[in-house]
């Protein structure tokens, strides 16, 4: 029984869009309801007062933890179902048409560039990019090798960024579209801020 409470304390919770910020459950403190001392504890002012703020109370609401856990599982499952399909447009300079890729399908920059490579096979993509190799890309851009391409993306702020600088997950959540640039144009991206 106590394990459930400890588990709750470390569990991440997801909120529905538009709800207030989620309060993390406090670990099961046996004295959470002792009103003689801590009136400020958990925002409850005991039987005579009324709580100012919502807080976690042991055993409330009266739902079995077994059931709450299975609800949470179902909710996260549903969220996962809803959020597959992060489709973004991919343009390549000189190509007659754009493509679309589902970023949710890939796990790393390598996977993505491999897929883009296959997609734009006829257009010689050049070196594959991993996060580490972003450094190489900088060199390529600076070195001005015109046959190389650079993969860039437009982020949430509308800025064009070089792919590979940030962790994969962060990239996926901020990428709105992709553009495969010619090497000579990519030089501009690596100029110091």
């Amino acid at each position, binding site marked *: 029984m106590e394990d459930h*409470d400890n588990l709750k304390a470390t569990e991440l919770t997801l909120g529905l869009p538009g709800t207030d910020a989620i309060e993390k459950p406090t670990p099961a403190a046996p004295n959470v309801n002792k009103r003689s001392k801590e009136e400020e504890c958990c925002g409850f002012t005991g039987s005579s007062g009324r709580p100012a703020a919502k807080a976690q109370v042991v055993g409330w609401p009266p739902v079995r933890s077994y059931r709450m856990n299975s609800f949470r599982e179902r909710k996260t499952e549903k969220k996962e179902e809803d959020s597959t399909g992060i489709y973004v447009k991919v343009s390549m300079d000189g190509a007659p048409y754009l493509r679309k890729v589902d970023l949710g399908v890939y796990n790393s920059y390598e996977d993505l560039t491999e897929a883009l490579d296959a997609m734009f096979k006829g257009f010689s993509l050049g070196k594959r990019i991993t996060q580490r190799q972003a450094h190489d890309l900088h060199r390529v851009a600076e070195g001005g090798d015109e046959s190389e391409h650079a993969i860039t993306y437009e982020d949430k702020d509308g800025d064009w960024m070089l792919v590979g600088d940030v962790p994969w997950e962060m990239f996926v959540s901020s990428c709105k579209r992709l553009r495969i640039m010619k090497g000579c144009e990519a030089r501009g991206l690596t100029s110091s801020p």
Partner: protein
Amino acid sequence: MTYFPEEVVEHIFDFLGSHRDRNAVSTVCKAWYHVERLSRLNVFVGNCYAIRPERVMARFPGMKSLSVKGKPHFADYNLVPYDWGGFALPWIKAAVRRSPGLEDLRLKRMVVTDDDLDLLARSFPNFRSLVLVSCEGFSTDGLAAIATYCRGLRELDLQENEVEDHGRQWLSCFHESCTSLVSLNFACLKGEVNAGVLERLVARCPNLRSLKLNRAVSVESLNEIVARAPYLVDLGTGSFAVLDCIGDKGLAVVASTCKELQELRVFPSDIYGAGATSVTEEGLVAISSGCPKLNSLLYFCYQMTNAALITVAKNCPHFTRFRLCILDPWKPDPVTNQPLDEGFGAIVRSCKNLRRLSLSGLLTDQVFLYIGLYAKCLEMLSIAFAGDSDKGMVYILKGCKNLRKLEIRDCPFGDIALLNDVAKYETMRSLWMSSCDVTLGGCKALAAKMPRLNVEIINESEGTDKLEENISDLHKVEKMYVYRTVAGPRNDAPDFVWTL
């Protein structure tokens, strides 16, 4: 009647189905007591600590079916520490010795170990049915023992238990010659079962009528199973629970289509804040007007109004179980800003057969006055964050003649209420009070006056052992559990439980 031969009296008693009726006739006279006890087959023990197992089995030597309940209900919500008690072993051991013909065993909220299940499986050659509800302490190894040794098993029903998955293919332990299964429910298990084994088991049990699987069973497997069990009456993946994200609109749909609905449970999907699609009083009103046969309700919501409850009471006078949980404690009627006394008052006034009631929201002593006045059939009452003074609790104890279980948390009820009518508690199964205003002195006084009650204090603070000497009688007791018993203080209480 006493001039009839015993066989005739016994035959008449055969028509008495319920334990209560049988208990009643057994108190008429010695002859009837004697006939009744020798002919009772189904024994129900509502509190495992109310009586010793040996005494039960000595009284009912013909016992074929035993049902025992252990922990207090609030254990479901983590209010009772893990090793509080409620052990199945003494009951199983006593049955091994005295009732080897045992066929059915049902345990609720008890601690059952793999060794217990192993002993059970090997000791009763006629064993037919095992039902475990909200139990813990066992693993799939225990289930393997049951499957292996209970030849002729008809029912294995596991409801909401905490079962450790030791990876053992327990289902494979049902022997190839086992063809007797009528009901199998393993919905609460988290682990996988071998699809082929399950399919073959189903195929060779022609009497299988009820099958409840866990979510690990694939859809393909489900197809196979259904194909091989054409006489199944009840197939499911555990209980169907409605989440409140269906919203009031969803409930309105239910109300307009499910005219035969008798029981409804709506659970909260997000306890941290009302989502856009959670349910309110509107959903409940819709259900009540669309489903006139509704008699059992468990409803979690973010708000409720008196007007809605009054309407519900008018629409559904047949409620036997009405449990409403407004997720914010002390929340008033949002329209009038009033307490919900009138709303719940209407429910108890209208629903003359109400046996179980759970309250929530802002409530004063007035609601308890109504309950004491009108809820004459009430057997179980759950109260949380309600009331103003001792008067509230006194109204309940005075008025509810049929009250069996009273559980209270976070209410301003203290010693005056507790000690107002101590004899009352011997007419009830149990009383739970936590985070209320009862003091150690009050509990001691109760224990002193009523030797046939066990007054247990659960004390979870540090340094529990020494504390009893230093704690003043004025100290408020965190958790108190009082129950009637003929067995005296229990001998398996852990350190943090003091029996006064």
